């Protein structure tokens, strides 16, 4: 959910003018925001599953330290979505285990 109004930060300035694709589903995003933000705004919480136990993981540290939020972005696996900004037409996939390079 986006915070459209805020008592200190005021109204939300960015507009969700671009579209990205997540596992085939199209969602809107604000140019410049991080991939993880667009996903959470769209209600998506599970970003990947782990390689040993297949457990779901999502946004955890928010500053590119923990690697829990990694997804396959434009066929490149293990992209840290919390510090990678969205771009128009970006194709994002839930990553299973270590992911696969799909060239």
């Amino acid at each position, binding site marked *: 959910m986006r915070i459209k109004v805020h008592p200190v930060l005021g109204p939300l300035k960015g507009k969700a003018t671009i579209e990205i694709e997540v596992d085939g589903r199209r969602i809107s995003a604000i140019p410049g925001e991080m991939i993880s933000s667009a996903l959470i705004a769209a209600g998506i919480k599970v970003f990947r599953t782990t390689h040993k*136990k297949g*457990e779901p*993981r999502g946004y955890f540290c928010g500053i*590119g*330290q*923990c*690697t829990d939020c*990694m997804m396959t972005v434009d066929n490149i696996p293990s992209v*840290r979505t919390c510090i990678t900004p969205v771009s128009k037409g970006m194709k994002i996939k839930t990553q299973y285990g270590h992911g696969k390079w799909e060239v």
Partner: protein
Amino acid sequence: MIDDEELVICRCEEVTKGEILEVMEKGAETLNEVKRLTRAGMGLCQGRVCRRLVMQIYCQNVGKKPEEIKPTKYRPPVRPLPIETLASGVKSIELDPDYEGI
């Protein structure tokens, strides 16, 4: 607390508290040994999340304070980056022949 053995400590390598205690029981003496035998702290985040937790478990188990033990080592690169990026910088460093590394 229940589920203690099953508690995941290293999120990246999915190492449990039970596994850490097990290698210590089998003879792992230093933190470095615990790390290498369990792989706790050797995954994607390189211990950024679990380093302190592993150390706490280790300290508790050997009955020592953090100041009395030897921490695990850091090695470059200390930030995650593609090997391709790393290689692009090698050209520009004059390696000192006497330099013994970190």
